[in-house]
């Protein structure tokens, strides 16, 4: 039998990074394949190679037994490879039908569009997907799940025999996911080869037949059957070791009064009735899946989204933080964003320009006068302590490695001497050594009396670092778990909270 898609010994390097190293993958018609790996393991690079966005340095992509050289997404489509990207790729004001048929609206630029034909064709695909909506409706009026299905329809309508889905369930509810899975199963039964990328292992075990795991740009396993594997095996392949049982002893509960407390907090972003408290010296974990509203909560605390009801207390006093500037300069609250490139750092500027940004206002002399050495005096001890490796403090930060960038984005808050530090997904895109270092650092910060709010989707990290874990889902707090570093117990308790109300 000829495999629908074969990726054979592909390698790909970017300046300074070897993203893929001799990676292989096999997709067969009629089966659903899971592509797994931690952030930065090379999944997205592999998808980009299969869809013609990147060209591999070495290795081949083979479709139906023939070697193909895909120079752009169009050629990938012509080769029968369809893809549903993580970000929405629809034209919001166009109708469903037009979106599905976008590349086939007419033969040439000046041909008139035959809308009857387009609608008939699109309706056919909507039927196949069990989607009962008028295909003349603009996609901007659809729910996220419906848009997701429209994108799948669009990919399928191109006669795709291979369909890649990059985290299709990230923003779906459990019921919507169920509908999606039914469709995917149906497609597989019709002979389509599907590749499913997801962070949610439960889903993978629910619908996938085979699995490929990437770790650090290499195959940790290649296209093996999921039968006989259990969750722990897959996790072990993903992180290269068993899920670590934490070595840190549980820390005594600090008895100080809470530094930050939310009481019945609700926000314009959609948070409802959120209550939590962080004490100085305590590390409060905030666990939840993507889309649970954790980063949004952090931004709400910083005053970047409006509070609609409830109370925010800083050091026991009800406060109304109006902006991130107020949060930092008046209340000593800092936020390490999960999106280092967009929200964490100014990549165009130097290490010094990035680490000093939080203290400029504080250390400037009269008339805002500020010399480099003043900033250096205030920040270099922190940079040294964090062992930021840079040829010079004037080096443009975009040139540093991910780990060093992350250290700088934490360092700027330490330099500012914040009393509460919110850390969002600290270990995205950094190496294991820096990750361990950051965990130690977070502990040290807490020991020195900083209140820490740690947001992470990385369960081992959460169990290893946090003292107490608040579980969020659907912009609400679902429960709280005291962390005794017993991975089995804690993770089961957390998952219990997440699924309990969804199932109902």
């Amino acid at each position, binding site marked *: 039998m000829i495999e629908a898609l074969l990726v054979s010994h592909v390698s790909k390097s970017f300046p300074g990074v070897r993203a893929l190293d001799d990676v292989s993958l096999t997709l067969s018609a009629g089966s659903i394949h899971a592509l797994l790996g931690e952030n930065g393991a090379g999944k997205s690079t592999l998808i980009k190679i299969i869809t013609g966005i990147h060209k591999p340095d070495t290795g081949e992509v083979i479709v139906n037994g023939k070697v193909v050289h895909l120079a752009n997404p169009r050629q990938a489509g012509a080769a029968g490879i369809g893809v549903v990207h993580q970000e929405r790729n629809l034209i919001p004001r166009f109708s469903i039908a037009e979106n599905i048929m976008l590349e086939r609206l007419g033969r040439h630029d000046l041909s008139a569009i035959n809308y009857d034909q387009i609608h008939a064709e699109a309706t056919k695909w909507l039927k196949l997907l069990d989607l009962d909506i008028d295909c003349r409706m603009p996609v901007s009026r659809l729910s996220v799940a419906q848009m997701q299905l429209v994108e799948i329809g669009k990919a399928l309508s191109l006669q795709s025999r291979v369909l890649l889905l990059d985290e299709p369930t990230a923003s779906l509810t459990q019921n919507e996911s169920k509908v999606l899975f039914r469709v995917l199963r149906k497609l597989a039964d019709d002979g389509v080869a599907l590749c499913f990328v997801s962070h949610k292992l439960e889903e993978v075990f629910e619908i996938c037949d085979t699995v490929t795991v990437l770790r650090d740009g290499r195959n940790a396993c290649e296209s093996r059957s999921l039968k006989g594997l259990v969750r722990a095996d897959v996790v072990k392949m993903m992180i290269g070791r068993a899920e670590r049982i934490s070595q840190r002893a549980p820390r005594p509960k600090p008895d100080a009064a809470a530094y930050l407390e939310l009481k019945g907090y609700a926000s314009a972003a959609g948070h409802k009735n959120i209550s939590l408290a962080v004490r100085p010296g305590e590390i409060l974990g905030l666990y939840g899946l993507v889309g649970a509203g954790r980063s949004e909560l952090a931004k709400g605390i910083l005053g970047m989204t409006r509070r609609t009801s409830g109370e925010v207390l800083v050091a026991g006093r009800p406060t109304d933080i109006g902006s991130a500037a107020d949060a930092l300069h008046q209340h000593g609250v800092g936020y390490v964003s999960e999106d280092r490139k967009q*929200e964490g750092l100014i990549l*165009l500027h130097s290490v010094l320009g990035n680490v000093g940004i939080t203290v400029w*206002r504080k250390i400037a002399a009269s008339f805002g006068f500020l010399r*480099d050495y003043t900033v250096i005096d205030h920040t270099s001890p922190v940079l040294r302590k964090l062992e930021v490796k840079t040829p*010079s403090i004037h080096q443009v930060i975009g*040139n540093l490695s991910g780990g060093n960038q992350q250290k700088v984005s934490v360092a700027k808050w330490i330099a500012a001497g914040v009393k509460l530090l919110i850390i969002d997904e600290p270990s995205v895109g950094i190496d294991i050594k820096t990750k361990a270092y950051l965990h130690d650092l977070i502990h040290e910060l807490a020991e020195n009396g900083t209140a820490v709010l740690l947001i992470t989707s990385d369960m081992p990290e959460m169990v290893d670092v946090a003292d107490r874990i608040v579980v969020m889902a659907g912009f609400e707090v679902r429960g709280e778990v005291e962390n005794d570093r017993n991975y089995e117990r804690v993770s089961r308790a957390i998952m219990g909270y997440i699924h309990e109300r969804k199932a109902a």
Partner: protein
Amino acid sequence: MTPSDVTNTSDAMPIAAGRQSLVQRLAYSSEFGLVLLIALAVALFASTLPGFTSPFSLFTIGRQIGIDTMIGLAMMAVIVTGGLDLSVGAIGVCSAMAFGWLMERAGVPLYMGIPLAVMFGAGLGFVNGAVVVRSGVHSFIITLASMSIFFGIMIFLSQAQAFRTLPPEVLGFGKMRFGGLVSALLVFSLIVCAVLSALYRFTSLGRQMLAAGANPRAAEISGVRTGRIFIACHMLTGALAATAGLMITARTGAAVPSMAGHLGQDWLLPAFLAPVLGGTLLSGGRVAVFGTFLGAALVNIITSGLLLMRVGEFWIQAFLGLMLLAAVLTDRARHKLLQRRGMI
């Protein structure tokens, strides 16, 4: 990497002297290329065109460089934010006319009139900035509208009449030259360049402007009040545009409503040409203050040379357009280089 390596590198992290080597910095800077081009152009024109190096010619070229530098700096101050201000010309003319009114009609003394006119320009910039920040609409369309409004109000109030009876010191400053050839307007622009450089390098405000321009979201989260900073950038633009308007008033000895063309559109080209040639990134976050001066210098030297070569004045306009095209293509190449080196 061994632990000692780690400590070594961090200990060796150079604090003061550790910038890129001088040669490297020179080679990468757009200023270096401009200085070369200027030297080349001057050498060429000086050797082939006899009138080029006459004191009067040098004086007039310098004077125009001074004015164009100021116009370029005005636009640069808002390009920092990644936005732009189509109304620089309108603000410049309005401020110059306000100055003329203050002098001629209100009888305000000169030493009061100048700062008032500059503050007036800053005020118009504030209006732009506040609307842009509040509405969240791109500065292009807002300043397109304000350009029409400012200019319309000015013409309506002035009835398109110039103010010609200004204190003699005004024209005197425009005619002043040092050593017989260096225009006072040029020297003044250089001083403003120095002040702006200091602003961007040595003050908290300037640094916040650059940070907010390079990445507004990151800056906001890091405690920079990006809204206020952007408004400050627009105010700076307004003040510099007003200064440029006053400089033209000094050159001609009168505040004329048509000094920047219909709606002040005539300033748009020099306003973008100088900073872009100088190496200011159009996407924001990086300025080139002296580069803007060098850009204005290059443009005016070539323009003067071409005029002396009897290339028609009108064709020079087309040439300036081509020059802008060349400048942005170079900017693009530089941007790509920066990207490849991971700086963006």
